[in-house]
C-alpha cells in the first residue's frame, strides 16, 4: 500500500551551550550582522530620511483693503496717485486723485475660503489727460493651516506701461506662493505678518516702490501675481475715467515643508524593515545550517529525542 504524508509539524530543537562559548559569540555576530547592515543598505541607497515633503492647500486669502496706485498721466513723468495710506496721500499733494473703487471677494465653491478678488477702480481724468502707465499695489493677508499655521501679509504688484494712452487695464491672474525655504511642519509662523507698506510712516522713503519691493523680496516666503496677462485697452472717451479691472484668483498651492521627527522615523522604519526581512531570512538559514551541522559545539536538545530514552 502506498504511503503518503498525512500530516507534518515543525520540530523544535534546542541547542544548549555555556554563556562564554564560540556559539554565543557567533550568535552575537549574527545579531549584529542581521540588524545593522539593513540600516546601512537603506541609508546608503538614498532617500532614507524624508528631508522635505509637500502638501496641497488652498490658502485663506483676504484682501486687506490697502491700495497704492500711481498712474502716469503724461509721457514725461507726470503722474497722479492715490493710496489708502494717509501719509502717502499727504506727501503726494496736488497730484492726489480720488478714484472710485469697488471690491468684491468671491467664494465660488462655498467652502468658506475666498477664491477670487474682483477689484475695480475708476480713476477720474481731465479731458486733456491720458494714462500711459499704471503701478498698483494690493495687499492681502495670507494664511495656511494644514501643517504649520502660517500667517503673513503679502502683496500683488501690478505694473503696466504703454506708449499708447489707455482706457482700461484688465488683469486676470493667480496670486501664487513663492517659497525660498520649506515651511515648518507644526506651530505658528508669523514672521512675515507685518505690513508690506508701512502706512503709519509719513516719510517719503517708506512709499518708494524700490524700497517696498526690496524689503518685500527679502522675505523667504512671498506671493506674486503670476500669469496675469495684462490687457491694455485703448480708446478712452474724453469724459470717461481710466478703469482698472483686476481679477486675482487664490489657487490651491503645493507647499513644501520640513517633515517632523515622527514622520521621518515612520518613513525610515518602512524602508528599514523591508530590507531587514531579507536579512532575517538569510541569517535564519545560516544559523540553522551552523547549529544543525554542529560547526560550534552545542548540546542539541530535541523534544522528540529527549523523550525517547523514557520510552525505551
Amino acid at each position: 500500500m502506498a504511503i503518503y504524508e498525512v500530516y507534518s509539524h515543525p520540530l523544535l530543537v534546542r541547542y544548549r551551550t555555556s554563556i562564554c562559548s564560540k556559539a554565543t559569540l557567533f550568535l552575537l555576530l549574527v545579531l549584529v550582522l542581521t540588524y545593522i547592515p539593513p540600516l546601512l543598505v537603506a541609508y546608503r541607497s538614498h532617500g532614507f530620511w524624508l528631508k522635505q515633503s509637500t502638501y496641497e492647500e488652498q490658502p485663506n486669502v483676504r484682501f486687506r483693503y490697502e491700495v497704492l496706485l500711481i498712474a502716469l498721466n503724461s509721457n514725461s513723468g507726470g503722474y497722479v496717485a492715490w493710496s489708502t495710506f494717509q501719509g502717502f496721500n499727504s506727501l503726494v499733494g496736488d497730484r492726489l486723485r480720488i478714484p472710485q473703487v469697488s471690491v468684491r471677494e468671491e467664494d465660488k465653491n462655498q467652502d468658506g475660503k475666498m477664491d477670487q478678488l474682483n477689484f475695480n477702480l475708476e480713476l477720474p481724468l481731465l479731458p486733456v489727460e491720458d494714462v500711459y502707465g499704471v503701478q498698483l499695489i494690493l495687499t492681502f493677508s495670507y494664511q495656511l493651516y494644514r501643517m504649520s499655521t502660517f500667517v503673513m501679509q503679502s502683496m500683488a504688484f501690478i505694473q503696466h506701461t504703454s506708449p499708447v494712452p489707455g482706457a482700461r487695464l484688465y488683469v486676470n491672474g493667480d496670486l501664487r506662493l513663492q517659497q525660498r525655504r520649506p515651511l515648518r511642519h507644526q506651530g505658528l509662523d508669523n514672521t512675515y505678518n507685518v505690513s508690506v507698506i508701512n502706512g503709519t510712516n509719513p516719510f517719503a522713503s517708506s512709499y518708494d516702490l524700490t524700497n517696498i519691493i526690496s524689503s518685500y523680496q527679502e522675505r523667504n516666503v512671498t506671493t506674486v501675481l503670476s500669469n496675469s496677462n495684462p490687457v491694455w485697452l485703448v480708446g478712452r472717451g474724453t469724459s470717461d475715467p481710466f478703469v482698472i479691472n483686476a481679477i486675482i484668483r487664490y489657487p490651491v498651492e503645493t507647499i513644501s515643508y520640513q517633515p517632523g521627527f515622527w514622520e521621518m522615523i515612520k518613513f525610515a522604519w518602512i524602508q528599514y524593515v523591508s530590507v531587514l526581512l531579507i536579512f532575517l531570512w538569510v541569517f535564519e538559514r545560516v544559523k540553522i545550517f551552523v547549529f544543525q551541522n554542529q560547526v560550534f559545539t552545542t548540546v542539541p536538545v530535541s523534544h522528540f529525542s529527549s523523550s525517547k530514552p523514557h520510552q525505551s
Partner: protein
Amino acid sequence: MMPPQGTPCPVTLAVLGILAQVGAQSVIGFYPSTVFLSGPQMTTFLVANVSSDQLSLAVIANTTSLPSPSCNGQNTTDNWLSSIESFADGAQLIVSKVMVMLRKNLTLCSDNDTNCCQEDRCIVETLQVTACENNRSIASLLIHADLFINTTFQGIVSENKTVIPNQVYQPLGPCPCNLTAGACDVRCCCDQDCSLSMKELFNGSCYSGVFGGNVSPPFDQLCSIQEKNHAPDWYPFLCVQSDMDNSPFLGYFYQGYTGIPSPSPSFNLSFQSIYEKALNGYKQGDAIFVDLIGFNEYLTIPQPSAIGTCMRNAPVAYLQDFNATCVTDITVCSDAWTFHLNDVEVKDGSGGTIPLNVQLTDTTQDVVPTGPALPQPVQCEVNVFADYTFIWEANKIKEIQVTIETANITLTHQAKLAQRFTATFLTSNATADVFSGNPGYQVGKPVIAANGSAPFTKTTLNVWKPVLDSSCSSVTQTAILFGENYFSGCLFKVVNENCTQLRENVLSWFQTSLLSVNRISMRGNSNVRDPSEWISIIYEEPNTTCTENCETENVMCLGVPSNMNIQVLTAVTGVVEGIPQEEILAAKVSFSTIIVNCVSACNLSLPLTASVEFIKVPAQPPLSITRFQLMNTEYDCEKNDVCWQQLAYPLTKYYSGEPQYLTLAKGLILAFFFISAAVLGAPWNRIRKAWNETTF
C-alpha cells in the same frame, strides 16, 4: 380665465347688429354705443332730439340674447353709478354726456371691507344703459366691463418695525425674485401677489432655479435620490430621510449663526494727528518737527518717493541721511522748488526750538532747453542745492546748518532743472577722518589710496566714469568700492600718430587719469603715518618702443595698451565679534594690448578700458589635497547626500525642523522601546535564564 382679447365676444357681435339697424334710421343714439370697459369709469355721449333726464342701468346676466331696452331700472346698481349732463341746449339735437362709474375701489379686500374686490378679477359684467324720456327709451348703450384689481402699490409705508421670522422655520426670502412689495413681479411665479390669472400670462417662462423662488430640487443626500444616482451600497445607512419641503438650497437646514462685524471699516484711512503730539526727545526714524505757533508741523525737504519723482512735503527722519536729486520741468520761475527758511523754528526734541543757520552762496548753472520756446525769456533765481547738516547729541538736535546754493538762470525754453537736497546727521561739526571700515574694509566702501611717503594724504583709487558720448576728453572719475568688480572705458581720439607716439600717448593717458597713486591702504583704518599699513601697487608697464617685428609698424601698430586691469587681492585676516575682517594683501596694475590698424593719416576712436577685479584668497595658503582626498566625500555632507554624519539625521544638528531637545527626547523614547523589546525578547531572555541558573 380671461377671454382672449383678439376675438370679439358674442355680446359685442349682437350689439353691432342692432346698432347697424338703428344707425341707418337716424343719428339718435349713444356714441360710442358699445364699450369694452377695463377701467373704473367711462364717458360716452348721447345724441337725441329730446332732452333725456333719466338713465336706467340693467345688468345682463344671459349674454347670449339681448333684452329690449327698458326704463324700469334705476340709475345705479350694486356696482355702478351713472350720471347724465346735457349741453348744447336749444338746438334741434341735444347732446348729453353720460358717465358710468364703478362704486367700488379696485383693491383686494383685506378685512370686512365691502367697498373692495373679493378677487383679482374684480368684476365681469355686461351692463345695459338705457336713456329714457318719460319712461320711453330713446337709446341704449352696452358696456362689457372686465375689471382687474389695481396691483400698483398705493398704500402708505408704515413705520412699524418689520418682524423678521425665525429663519429656521420660515426663510427670510422664500421668493428671491419678488422685488416689489404688494405688486406682482412679472415672470416671478412664486410671488404671492400674482394671481392665478396673472401667472397664466407668464406661466411658461417663470424664472428658474433658486432665484425663481421657492424651489426645492431633491438634494444629493436624500435617500430617495440615491437609487437613481448609482450610489454605493452603503449609502442607505447614511442618507437623509427628509420631507421635500426641507431644502438646503434655501438654507432650511441651517441654524442662522451670528456674524461678527468687522471691527474697522474696510478702506480704513486712519491717521495719527501730529499737531499736538508731545515730544520727549527724538529717536532714530522719528520725524523732525518744526514749531508752528505752538503746534507741530513736519520739517520737510523734497525727497524722491513712489516712482522716483520728488515729493515736496516729505518729512525728514531723525538720523537718516539722504541725498536726493530732483528734476523738474521748469517753464516759470515758480516751478523750481524754493525754501522759506527765515522764521522756521525746529523743535530740538527737549522742549526748545532752534533756528536754521542758513548760508546762501551763489553758483552758476547751465540750463539746457528740452522743450518748446517760451514767449519771452525769464530771469530766475533758483536754488540748485540745499545741504542740511544736523548736529545732534543723544536724542536732541543741537544745531542745524543749511547751505543753499542759488543760481541765476535765464529761461528761453522749457527746461529741466536738477535740484539737489542732502541731509546729514553729525555728532560734531568737525569733518572727521573718514574710514572705510574698522579695522578691515567694509564691502561697498571706497578703497583708500595715497601717493608719496608717510604721512600719507588719503585719496581714493579711481576708475573712469564715462559721460555724454563716452569720449576720453569728457570722462569723469569714480571711486573703486571695495569688493565690487568694475568695468568702464572711454573712446580715445587718435589723430595721425605713429606707433611709438600712439603707445606713449595712450599710456600717459592711463597714467595721468587713473594712476596718480602708488600706495593702497591695507585696512579700512590704516594709519597714515605707518608705511607698513600701506602696500605699494605693483605696476606692469608695457613697452612703448617697438620690440619685435618692427617692420610691420608701417602697416599696423602692435602692442598698443588698451585695457588696464587692476587686480586687488583680499583676504579674511581675522574676526571682530564674529564678523570677518577683510584686508587688501596686494594690488597689481597690468595692461593688455591690441593691434591698431591705423598708421598714416588715420583718425579713429580707440576704445580704452579699465577693469577692476577683487580676488579673494585664503589668508593661509591651503594645504594641497591629494586626489583621494578630493574624491573621498564620505564625510562631506555638502558633496554627498548619504554622508555618514547624517546617518541619524533627525538627531543631528543638520535637521532644523524641530528644536534639538525635542528630537533628543523623542529619540530617547524610541531607544527605550527598542531596548525594552530587545531585553524582553530572545535570546536575551534565554541568556538571562541561563545566567540565573548558574548563579543560583
